[in-house]
């Protein structure tokens, strides 16, 4: 009956709890995205000024979506379909002039490569050779896409189709085809597919109302916003527009903003800025490269029998005493109240201190579907807070068994750029505020201040180096490099593509711009013999600074340190040695972890 108690536990349990706040959410299916791209001759017309053709631009965007899906949400499904082609290629070959280049699947290295092949003038040649340009039937193309969706055996949570074209009248007046297209579009929309139009530059302007207005899904808020958009002329615009649509808004959680007894506004919490991390490695079996699963078993050291959670307890050591609790008690200590937000009061904006920052903010938007009337009250609060320059102070419990935090709800008004769509949405930014524990006391050094002359010289320097900061201007070099490496390995490339480290100061440019200003400033603030690059005048005693010999710690001394709680006085190398010597298992290398391990060892050995 030894395996009777078999109990497996995921080893990452605790980490997950730690980091649960950022991940998580209500993921119940896959997102899917179909690029439906016009392959007519018009798409391949090159502009005279060397700008890429519409087709080329589209392929660049498709590629960037592929790679961004790979890095951020590899489980999403993406397809690439051309219409208006000469050749046909689709699952049952039942549609003419529709070419399914990639059917709905997770994007991978090979697909990126295949899209790359369609870029540039070579790409245009390849496209002409393999697909060609022919008749157009949007109805057939949409029908074919509908089949792609229905062939998928997985549950899809979000279905989107983007049409890239520069022809506002695709069937050139063929009313039968027009009607067919409308019918198929409406069928698709009925199955939950959202159809967007990414219309591209066309001589004489792109008239959405001519035909495509009846094809696309009307915008969420029923305003005309979506239709007034200008066609995209620039790659950057197209990329932004696609990026804004391509990702589904994932709500972190939905909860109530409680103003008082019985006044609950339903809100959704969204995260708009989360540090992207390198995805964790996957363990693979050497022979086959297939992923392995890990199971963690907890068993009794002496008897070897497996231990169930009920046979385990949790403990911490304080003041030389081991304090033991049941596992569910440990959870219950963390619980204060059910998830939600509770309004405490209001404060003027200047009371929100810049340096009161402990973690990235989240965004709040009403959920009319949960509590009817939420949007109206939310909007009234937002309006008034914004006009009166106030923020709302709330207590916020984000999840079950999370302790509360105070947050500032800072109003943000909607900003739109004409022709380009929304820049910032209306809603509250939720700023996490520090507790007393989070603020450290520092001894600020007392130093002389600069004279106005010195300040003015620095002002000249600052003014020379001003630029317009944009939050999306810098890529993370470490993550970019990681994915380039993977890409190179996946595609058997000789070497990974080079990355540009955008957060490296452009020293040469800075030097040229500043010219003599640097020396002038240095002359003003530094004495002649001062060199900031070196350490200040030798503080260290010369001569006697021999390296200390390695200290060995006898057992009785260690015991004395444990008893007097003076382990903290020892250095990390000494502690490490002690751990090694007395066979203490350590989980980390931080000082506290070493100390904890030694103390725990001590208690199990000597006291109990």
């Amino acid at each position, binding site marked *: 009956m030894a395996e009777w108690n078999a109990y497996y536990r995921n080893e990452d349990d605790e980490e997950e709890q730690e980091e649960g706040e950022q991940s998580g959410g209500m993921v119940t299916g896959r997102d899917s995205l179909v690029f439906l791209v016009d392959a007519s001759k018009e798409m391949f017309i090159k502009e005279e000024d060397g700008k890429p053709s519409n087709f080329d631009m589209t392929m660049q965007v498709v590629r960037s979506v592929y790679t961004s899906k790979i890095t951020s949400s590899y489980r999403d499904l993406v397809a690439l379909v051309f219409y208006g082609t000469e050749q046909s290629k689709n699952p049952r070959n039942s549609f003419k002039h529709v070419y399914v280049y990639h059917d709905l699947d997770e994007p*991978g290295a090979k697909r990126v490569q295949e899209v790359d092949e369609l870029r540039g003038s070579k790409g245009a040649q390849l496209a002409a050779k393999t697909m060609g340009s022919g008749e157009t039937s949007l109805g057939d193309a949409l029908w074919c896409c509908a089949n792609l969706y229905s062939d998928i055996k997985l549950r899809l949570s979000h279905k989107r189709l983007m049409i890239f074209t520069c022809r506002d009248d695709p069937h050139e007046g063929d009313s039968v085809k027009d009607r067919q297209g409308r019918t198929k579009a409406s069928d698709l929309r009925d199955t939950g597919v959202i159809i967007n139009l990414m219309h591209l530059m066309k001589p004489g302007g792109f008239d959405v109302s001519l035909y495509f207005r009846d094809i696309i899904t009307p915008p969420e808020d029923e305003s005309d916003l979506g239709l007034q958009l200008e066609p995209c002329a620039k790659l950057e615009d197209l990329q932004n527009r696609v990026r804004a649509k391509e990702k589904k808004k994932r709500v972190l959680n939905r909860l109530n903003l409680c103003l008082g007894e019985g006044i609950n506004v339903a809100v959704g919490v969204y995260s708009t800025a989360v540090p992207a991390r390198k995805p964790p490695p996957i363990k693979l079996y050497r022979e086959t490269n297939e992923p392995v699963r890990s199971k963690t078993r907890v068993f009794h050291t002496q008897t070897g029998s497996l231990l169930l959670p009920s046979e385990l307890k949790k*403990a911490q050591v304080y003041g030389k005493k081991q304090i033991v609790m049941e596992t569910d008690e440990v959870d219950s200590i963390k619980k204060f109240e059910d998830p939600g937000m509770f309004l405490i009061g209001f404060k003027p904006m200047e009371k929100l201190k810049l*340096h009161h920052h402990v973690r990235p903010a989240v965004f709040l938007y009403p959920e009319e579907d949960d509590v009817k009337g939420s949007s109206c009250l939310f909007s009234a609060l937002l309006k008034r807070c914004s006009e009166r320059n106030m923020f709302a102070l709330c207590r916020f419990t984000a999840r079950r068994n999370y302790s509360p935090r105070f947050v500032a709800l800072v109003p943000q008004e909607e900003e739109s750029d004409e022709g380009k769509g929304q820049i910032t949405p209306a809603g509250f930014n939720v700023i996490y505020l520090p507790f007393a524990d989070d*603020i450290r006391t520092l001894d600020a050094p007392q130093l002389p201040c600069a004279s106005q002359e010195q300040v003015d010289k620095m002002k000249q320097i600052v003014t020379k180096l001003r630029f317009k900061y944009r939050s999306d201007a810098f890529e993370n070099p470490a993550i*970019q490099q990681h994915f380039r490496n993977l890409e190179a390995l996946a595609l058997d490339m000789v070497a990974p593509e080079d990355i540009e480290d955008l957060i490296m100061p452009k020293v040469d440019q*800075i030097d040229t711009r500043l010219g003599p200003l640097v020396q002038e*400033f240095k002359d003003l603030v530094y004495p002649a013999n001062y060199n900031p690059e070196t350490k200040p005048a030798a503080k260290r005693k010369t001569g006697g600074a021999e390296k200390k010999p390695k200290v060995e710690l006898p057992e009785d001394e260690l015991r004395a340190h444990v008893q007097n709680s003076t382990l903290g006085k020892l250095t990390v190398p000494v502690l490490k040695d002690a751990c090694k010597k007395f066979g203490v298992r350590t989980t980390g290398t931080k000082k506290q972890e070493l100390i904890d391990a030694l103390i725990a060892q001590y208690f199990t050995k000597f006291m109990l």
Partner: protein
Amino acid sequence: MDVGFSMSNSAPGEEPPFELAKKVIQKFVQRQVFAETKDEMALVLFGTDSTKNPLEQDGQYQNITVHRNLMIPDFELLEEIANQIHPESQQADWLDALVVCMDLLKKQTEGKKYDRLVIVLLTDLCTQASPDELDIIIDNLKTAGITLQFFLPFPAGDDEEGGGDGDRGGSGHPGAGKGLSREQEQGLDMVKHVMLSLDEEDGLDEIYSFRNALEQLCMFKRIERRPTAWPCQLTIGSSLSIRIVGYKAVMDERLKKTWITVDAQTNKRDDVKRETVYCLDDDNETEVQKEDIIQGFRYGSDIVPFSKVDQDQMKYKHDGKCFAVLGFTKQSNIHRHQFIGNQVIKVFAPKDDEHAGVALSALIRALDELNMVAIVRYAYDRRCNPQVGAAFPCIKQHYECLMYIQLPFMEDLSHFTFPSLENKKFVPTEAQLSAVDSLIDSMMLVEKDESGEQKDMLKVHHIPNPAFQRHFQCLHHRAVNPGTPLPPMEPWLKAALERPEVISERCQAPLEEVKRKFPLTAVEKKKQLKTSAQIFGKDTGEPDAKKAKGDEEEEDYNLADIAEGSVTSVGSVDPARDFRTLVKLKSLPFGEVCQQLTHRIEQLLSNKNTHYYMKSITCIQAFREQSVKLGKADLYNSYLQSLKRSIPNRGLEVFWDLLVQDAVTLISKDEVEGSTVSKNEANQFLITDEKKEEVAAPTTEDTGDVDDLLDMM
């Protein structure tokens, strides 16, 4: 601490000074223990029946006991205070006690480094003290650099607490209202004399009453960390650098210690061993040796093997530590809500470098006057990836610094578009807006007082993190009262998290108005699809692979739904699916469908084969899921219970094992209201009983349980 006999005197219904003084010491020691400071502490009692101190000689320094020498406080000390310190029947001169303490400090700090020496005296001053050597004592205190603190049963300054509101003195501070005895008044004068001689200005601030002290000591110490300096150079271009030192100023603080896992019976950590095994994701779950595991990463649909060595060699490398300016930009270009990371770093010039101070000051002031910030590349050291961030100028009365906060990379941002709120349906009316206005007015936390100064009623950054307070409260309780349930939250902590009372009274009417003006109706939702985790009754800890399996099951089921609309009974091919469909169709009564399902389960189990076991488990899972969905727990629970009873007789241990692994528990009250099983029982169900069963098994001779099971349905 004075433990002399007058300390236990008190008016009826009042706590004697002895008890209060003891509490002060207990609270103080607790705080020290949990803050894990390296401060050392000794305990000297006076007024004890016996005498035990190094100075006792020739009848001098009598009735004074050194209870504990200078060392770091621990639970042993707490237990001693709780159990060994009692009111005693002698009296002793508090000045003598002071001398014993001074002597102790002097001798026991020899050869040790220390920041501060403090003697804290807790006494009621009822014993006559001889003032002969007072001046010598004061001189010695001064030379030794010892500071004093007095804790008395009554407030010291009559101008502060006693004078203004005489009626309050009686109830708030027992003893104060009744007038002090002659000895006490004399004693108080001496205390004041000592304190003022030591510190002319603020001497009296270090005299506290027990009550005040208890209020201030009720919370556990906030987490304090010694700031670590990060020396570096701020660079602008290749030839302008300024020496700087960075310190973390604000940081999302975590508890220092994590929970360790111990064996429930022995409470020993070493009795528990954790082992991780790896297995292939096949039917047999073939185990794989650790040496045969390599590392890989996902690149979209591809999994790319990528060893640690290669990864290290190819990874992004940089030159290490840096604080380099990329350029300057207007402060308005930086959005507060785009701050990232969990810390704020304050950047100063080194304290011994005036030139760096002037140079940095020029930069700080230039930025401040231009309303700009520096955008910098920041790398803590070679091992950490570099960040981009903003350095804000910060000019305070006593110092200047730059404040560095991390800004997002392009990869960190998600640009979501939301429907405009300027929608006709949601635009609030004037009446609604004015209701909100009066609500805001009534809930303003910052107000001007009579003198026209702004007063902030709730500075949340002065409140200690409630999670830590609660954590220490519970740990302390468990350490001191083992075997008793955890205490409720401390009332002051609860109150600290609520609206200030003034606000909650003031906002009642405006809230009612808001309630009237804004109709809010909760929308009944169809039940959200349960994730597999919920179905299995587990919140966390499901390996991904399992989750994925769950997903597929549901997906299958949806497809099957469309494909086979006409299920009439629970078949043998896919009983779980049929069961779900039938329950959904409601063509048969639930009980009937359940009976059909359990028949199939029993058939499957009679095969004694892992494959069939797995199939039965999916049936049981379906049974459970549907029962929860319909809110009918009884049939399922009683089936599972009787199934469990029958395990030993039918030799189905292996199957039960699997069921345990999948954590298929009973349905608890938490999930379905009508259930008679508590959550705890549900969880224990799979676990605890097996030992009893081992014993019980041989005695059960009943073989007819299969039929019993079915009859029950």
